[in-house]
């Protein structure tokens, strides 16, 4: 992936986060720092990434660390966009 793609991915994830939480986020801020993950929010993130970037997040890729920061989600998206990039599947 080019750095242009990375930037666009980051930007889209930030846009979603800010619209959803009504507050700004840094790319390395820990979304879940103040406690356990909200179950609804976790699922929204997964569905949003799948819809926006045409990927399928399955199996071990659903682990929390992949969703903890914008940087982590961007890396997940880029890995899953490349063929055979899934952790445990296909």
């Amino acid at each position, binding site marked *: 992936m080019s750095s242009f793609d990375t930037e666009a991915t980051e930007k889209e994830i930030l846009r*979603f986060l800010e619209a*959803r*939480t*009504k*507050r700004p986020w840094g790319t390395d801020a820990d*979304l*879940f720092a*103040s*406690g*356990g*993950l*909200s*179950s*609804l*929010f*976790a*699922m*929204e*993130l*997964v*569905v*949003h990434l*799948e*819809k926006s970037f045409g990927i399928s997040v*399955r*199996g*071990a890729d*659903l*682990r*929390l*660390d992949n969703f903890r920061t914008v940087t982590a989600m961007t890396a997940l998206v880029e890995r899953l966009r490349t063929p055979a990039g899934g952790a*445990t*599947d*296909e």
Partner: protein
Amino acid sequence: MSDRLLTEPPAPDAAVSPDAETPWEDPSAMVTALVADEADAWDRAGLLPVPLLRELGAAGWLCAQVPVVSGGRGLSSAAAGEFTAHVGSLCSSLRSVMTSQGMAAWTIERFGTAEQRAAFLPRLTGGGLAAAGFSERAAGSDLSAMTTRVRRDGDSVVLDGHKVWVTAAHYADLLVLFGRYDGSGDRGEDAGAVGGGEAVAVVVPADTPGVRVTRVADPLGCRAAGHADVALDAVRVPAGHVLGGSSLPLPLLVTTALAYGRMSVAWGCVGILRGCLTAATRHAATREQFGVPLGEHQLVARHLAELYVAEQTATRVCEHASRCWDDGSPEQVVATVLAKHVSAGNAARGAATAVQVLASAAARDGHVVARAHRDAKLMEIIEGSNEMCQLMLARHLLGRTV
């Protein structure tokens, strides 16, 4: 049983059917014919006929959203929803079994590897029956309190714990069970490599040694849905039965699985409302008191109008949520909770209203409206109580991530 049920599922290249214009048959008419006037007797007996369940399952109708490539009907959420509502208008117990089967299938589809999907989904579309177990004695609304333990032991996992109120477990061949993962016994090279999670979903054949299924005696509603407690005493299954092969965050795991159940319950409640609306309207049009049909009395007419409002409102909210699922929109998550909450509340109030309209005509166990009254109340509790739904909606409004 009718051989109409035995029609083959569509060929893999057949288009996904987005509506009731299915090329193979009209599933709603089929279920109407199969249920006939038996739902009252099933409710009183507290049992559904197992051959009927197996036959509907073998034709793919108990989990109609399973993709065609996995042997399913490949229905959209919207089309499956209308079908679910139809079944729910006839018999909420049968609809509950569909909800459980669909939730088990969805969990396998969503979290399973390609290999696991290929191994388990054809069983669920081939006549096998399944249930999904979440709740425990000390973990109802607060599923984070679940203590069922899934311990890795070499090439196996061993389950110990006690699930309660598992819908359809009485009938199930396969149980999809959620528990806490203890990977310390993993002797493989990947031990601990898939950390970050604390929970797993495991597919457990109900006849595995150590599994004991005990029916819940005399449930308030959906009496024939086969609710049961499931005790697990050193239950050993291959590690390959852990969906996705890894532990995951418990909230993500259970919310994803429950999302399907909530959507199904929401549509089932639309069905409850339709059953009540039909019965109440017929009664108000024909039963006479004070020299005129009941519906001519303004206070009764208002009951009918309110029932119609409840049914239509629930339908629209469910349609919206299903559209979000079919579009892959992240809004599906909140729309599903909203649909479940609106539909369950409307069904509980609507069924109470219908009992009021029919009065003594419906005041006996087994009557469609009496069943609706009991079944709908349970729907305000199952798959996220009214109060849990309200909390989730409020947290959404507040933009909470944790």
